[in-house]
């Protein structure tokens, strides 16, 4: 039982954490909470199965093609759904535009790919049981992503520019930073991370258009738990969510497991609305 809780819990949690990071990367660059994160996760699995299973690309090429598609979708998201509404950001119009785009892509996927779950290839045929790829691949992807983002943000000029935009976009622009291009790059990066989450988790979650709503929601919980904009918080929140969900599956089972997850989520937000790792925002007076 413990083995199953840990292996499945951490693997699913890593996927949730990566979706949470996808939300964060888009939010940091634009202050827009884009609902396309779950869509990117869903497409990671569907496009991976399409490129490798149906079109016969080898695993490496298929993987690169999926990430490239993710980047392009990130760019399209920024241009079509975020940029036009940034002027009215106080009205939260982006909620509608990003959600509409995500739903449109999901419907197109259902029409073109089908509404049945389809298999995702076993890419690295080593290990059995809890050492299977489906468990360690999402965890590896999560570790690589968080380390990569830390290095990007702390060690590179572009990364620091991302942080500057996230901190104060007006000041960053006044200093001559190309805000629009940096925002575009952030959305492309989010596209890569989102599809990476879906690709690495697809053997477990299958290539299924319905994964979009699940990932959109369960990927949001780590962000809420970990604090908006905090990638480390998203990782901790995601892994904790995965482990808790799997424990609830074993202890209460069935539909009650989902109820337990939502109950804990609500309780945490009641006591820590800024998230477990977030700090209460100071308000200028």
């Amino acid at each position, binding site marked *: 039982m413990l083995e*199953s809780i840990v292996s*499945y819990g951490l693997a699913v949690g890593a996927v949730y954490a990566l979706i949470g990071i996808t939300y964060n990367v888009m939010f940091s660059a634009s202050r827009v909470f884009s609902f396309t994160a779950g869509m990117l996760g869903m497409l990671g699995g569907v496009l991976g199965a399409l490129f490798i299973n149906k079109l016969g690309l080898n695993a490496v090429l298929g993987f690169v093609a999926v990430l490239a598609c993710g980047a392009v979708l990130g760019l399209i998201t920024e241009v079509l759904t975020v940029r036009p509404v940034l002027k009215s950001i106080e009205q939260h119009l982006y909620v509608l535009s990003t959600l509409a785009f995500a739903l449109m892509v999901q419907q197109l996927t259902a029409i073109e790919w089908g509404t049945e779950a389809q298999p995702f290839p076993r890419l690295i045929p080593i290990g059995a*049981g809890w050492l299977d790829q489906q468990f360690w691949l999402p965890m590896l992807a999560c570790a690589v992503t968080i380390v990569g983002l830390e290095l990007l943000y702390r060690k590179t000029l572009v990364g620091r520019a991302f942080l500057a935009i996230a901190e104060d976009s007006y000041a960053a622009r006044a200093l001559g930073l190309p805000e629009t291009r940096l925002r575009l790059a952030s959305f492309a990066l989010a596209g890569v991370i989102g599809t990476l989450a879906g690709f690495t988790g697809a053997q477990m979650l299958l290539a299924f258009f319905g994964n979009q709503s699940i990932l959109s929601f369960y990927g949001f919980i780590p962000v809420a738990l970990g604090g908006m904009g905090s990638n480390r918080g998203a990782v901790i929140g995601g892994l904790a969510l995965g482990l808790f969900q799997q424990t609830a599956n074993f202890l209460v089972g069935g539909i009650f497991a989902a109820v337990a997850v939502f109950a804990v989520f609500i309780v945490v937000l009641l006591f820590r609305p800024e998230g477990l790792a977030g700090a209460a925002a100071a308000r200028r007076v």
Partner: protein
Amino acid sequence: MSISRRQVLAGSAVSAAALASGFPAPAIAQNEPIKIGYLPALTGPSSSTGIGINRGTLLAIEEINAAGGIKGRKIELVSRDTQSDPTKAVNAVAELTQRQKASIIWGPLNSGEALAATPLIARDKVPMLHPCWVDSLIDVKKYPMAFRIAPTNTQVGIGANHYVVDVLKLKKVAVISDTTGYGTASVETYVPMLKSKGAEVVYSGHVDAANPDLKPELLRMRNAGAQAIMPWSVNAGFLSRILNTRGAMGWDVPVVGQTTLGSGQTKALLEKPENWNKVYSNNFRNCCYVGGKLPARAQEFVDRLKKSKIEFGDTLLWWVALGWDGAKMIGDTLQAVGPKANDIVAYWNKVKGWPGVYGTVTWTPEQHNGFPDSEVVMCEVNSLRDGAFNLAPGYSG
């Protein structure tokens, strides 16, 4: 040219006189084809069933027309693809009943569309024949002109429960479903039926179909002593996870349930082909191999399909047979009583032991569900050959 009121009145008077004197209808009407409204889902998510049924329907109509039609009149199948969409089915009903003046409606072929279309067909007072399983689609008071040529969901459950309890002689059963309306309703209907047969339901639950790990549920079933698992879901992902988890646990328990267990989509999601062993899904006695052979009626039908070069290896024999039965029943009815609605319903109300390829049909004025319980059986899902499966082990005869 303008028509005066006097001319209209004069014309009406002549028509009335002709009618009163029993003047024969124009010969052209006698040669007009008899229109059958047909509502298959040939595209969209539910189309695999529709495509299979369509092949049998077209064959039957072709055979009837080639043999001279109905007293010299051809049958014209007015087909409208519902695209697996209840809204499109509803729109098509209006066209078929009111504009095309169809004598009979064959379909819709899926329950979702039939739930939307049946009240409208009943309102337009057109006889309706359909193969959908949802129980509430047949109600002699609400829909006196609707008849079913297939089993109900209840009969499907009875067939599966009979196999587990009476044929396999297993008494401890786990019943699981996804959280869809179909899944939860099935569990709520079938669990009391199992208990009334003397079985002990040691596990009963609904699980989110998206849950990637069903090991906790299967462990609960095993710990409770389940000797058979009965999953009720049309979600191939959910069903394959049950089978894969059972395989990973090395648990040799039979899995007995809905037809999707034996679908190609479920097969594609299996981690190992062995995970399909000891899996039994609903099927129909006339379309199953027994000792490697089909029943004579079905074999003769298969020979005709091959002769007519109709592909059925990529679909299921019972779907094609069901399509043929539906159209053949309509042909036999029109041959016997003609195209008038009340005559058709009166004829159907007296059908007894009609020998279809898919099933034997009996209707009465009180019972418009025509399929016999005894012909709902289980089959071995890993035995698919030429669109048909082996009868599951344990049945006699």
